[in-house]
């Protein structure tokens, strides 16, 4: 059966998480098609056609799809869903928003945040903040899946030459409207795609200190900045930096946890990192149990020293 991957994009380019979803889709057997639903999204559709392993790109273009509203994007996917055995989304804010809507309309279960494909109907997915891994089998005719990006290598963004087929865009459902957005503008790598992440916790004590201590080290390492839920709750860092069960799931080459005690919910979001460094003055902090290198020290002296030394 053919697999349809729903691309995440900004109308101009394809978001990185889509590449991981394409690579997961490739493991399901069968051709991989990609849907680019947007407005004036020709460039994104062309980019999707370049992804290695993609056999065909469906490009739906219309005003109803301009802002990725769940009601309209789900309707668009449902319009095209016939004939596909798997509908695959990246487990991003946007994928998580739309996929269950599609699954419910098809009267099928959804498989959330799969981390491994055992066969075309059997998957592994983490439960309880990653403290257990469930192997689940779906008997539904169509499998609606969201893919945890860190668990699958990104498909090469170039090397493919799929045909782009225009499909009619759905009309506007009319029940929801985009009002506006505030997107953080940053020169830093995206958190979920970064090779190095410097993350700060509650021990930093204030938003000023968070910025003063974490930012220079991140700059020096070319790293993305992350934060624990405690730091976000305390207002030291914005929510989109949150790493953990309820925030972003990351797996960089190097994760530096500064003043983070290591609550289960935080570990769930970063324990697949290749190398973990923990800097904390509490020798009993649970973060040390997962850290490759632990430095028991006062972060306010250790981190500036580390920034100097790297």
């Amino acid at each position, binding site marked *: 059966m053919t697999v349809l991957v729903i691309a995440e994009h900004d109308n101009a380019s394809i978001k990185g998480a889509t590449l991981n979803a394409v690579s997961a889709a490739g493991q399901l057997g069968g051709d991989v098609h990609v849907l680019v639903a947007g407005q004036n999204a020709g460039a994104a559709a062309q980019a999707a056609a370049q992804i290695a392993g993609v056999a065909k790109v469906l490009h739906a273009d219309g005003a109803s799809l301009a802002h990725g509203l769940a009601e309209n994007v789900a309707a668009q996917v449902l319009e095209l869903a016939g004939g596909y055995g798997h509908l695959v989304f990246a487990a991003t804010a946007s994928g998580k928003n739309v996929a269950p809507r599609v699954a419910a309309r098809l009267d099928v279960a*959804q498989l959330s945040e799969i981390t491994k494909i055992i066969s075309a109907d059997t998957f592994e997915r983490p439960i309880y903040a990653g403290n257990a891994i469930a192997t689940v089998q779906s008997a539904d005719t169509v499998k609606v899946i969201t893919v945890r990006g860190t668990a699958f290598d990104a498909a090469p963004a170039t090397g493919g030459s799929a045909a782009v087929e225009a499909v009619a865009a759905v009309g506007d459902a009319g029940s929801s409207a*985009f*009002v506006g957005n505030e997107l953080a503008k940053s020169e830093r790598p995206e958190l979920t795609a970064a090779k190095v992440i410097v993350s700060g916790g509650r021990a930093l004590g204030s938003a000023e200190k968070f910025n003063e201590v974490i930012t220079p080290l991140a700059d020096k390492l070319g790293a993305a900045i992350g934060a624990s839920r405690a730091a976000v709750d305390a207002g030291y860092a914005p929510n989109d930096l949150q790493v953990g069960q309820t925030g972003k799931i990351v797996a960089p080459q190097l994760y530096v946890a500064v003043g983070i005690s290591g609550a289960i919910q935080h570990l769930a979001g970063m324990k697949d990192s290749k190398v973990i460094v923990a800097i904390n003055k509490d020798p009993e902090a649970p973060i040390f149990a997962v850290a490759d290198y632990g430095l028991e020290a006062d972060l306010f002296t250790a981190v500036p020293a580390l920034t100097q030394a790297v």
Partner: protein
Amino acid sequence: MKILVPVKRVVDYNVKVRVKADGTGVDIANVKMSMNPFDEIAVEEAVRLKEKGAATEVIAVSCGVAQCQETLRTALAIGADRAIHVETDAELQPLAVAKLLAALVGKEAPGLVILGKQAIDDDANQTGQMLAALLDRPQATFASKVEVAGDKAQVTREIDGGLETVAVSLPAIVTTDLRLNEPRYVTLPNIMKAKKKPLEKVTPADLGVDVAPRLKTLKVSEPAGRQAGIKVADVAALVDKLKNEAKVI
């Protein structure tokens, strides 16, 4: 306007669950159970909307075993007016819960349904969106701000890279993110009052919903462990290890 708030009874978020030796699931015998934290935020938001005069009644719903009534009493203590318990011992998956809730929405006709964005046990993040789809109503997921004005709600959503604001026509489904509010502490007088609030019991059969699971769990296993590494003496030693041993900088 009524607000319906579904709440789920889950293993308390401070408990580190253990996988059962036979691989059939996680051991939840004798562990502390609580209301799913995101649902607590949902109840708080509904109660605040009532306090502001945007809603007239808050109805809490929980689907599952008899002990879900404890979770409903917590919702009533936060300030919900009455509760509905959809009682079943069957395993409930998100699609089944969404169908049960859709049936209750049919009976109660709430202007808003506010749910947690995900439960911290199965981490599915599906029920709200599925409910919206079954009802063919708009959704505003991962909310960090909700304002109701007339027949619309304006909701600020936490998305990758920042915030997005959408306007949805009521009735609508909202799912909560962490920063929406900080739930109040439940006081003893309110716990006592909650015991006297009405709690109605129904079954999936009463609602005409087939809750048979669609996904079969073949096994549950421990995640690949991560060995603790070493402690380094100082910053210089750390830099040396990162450069020469791990080779990541």
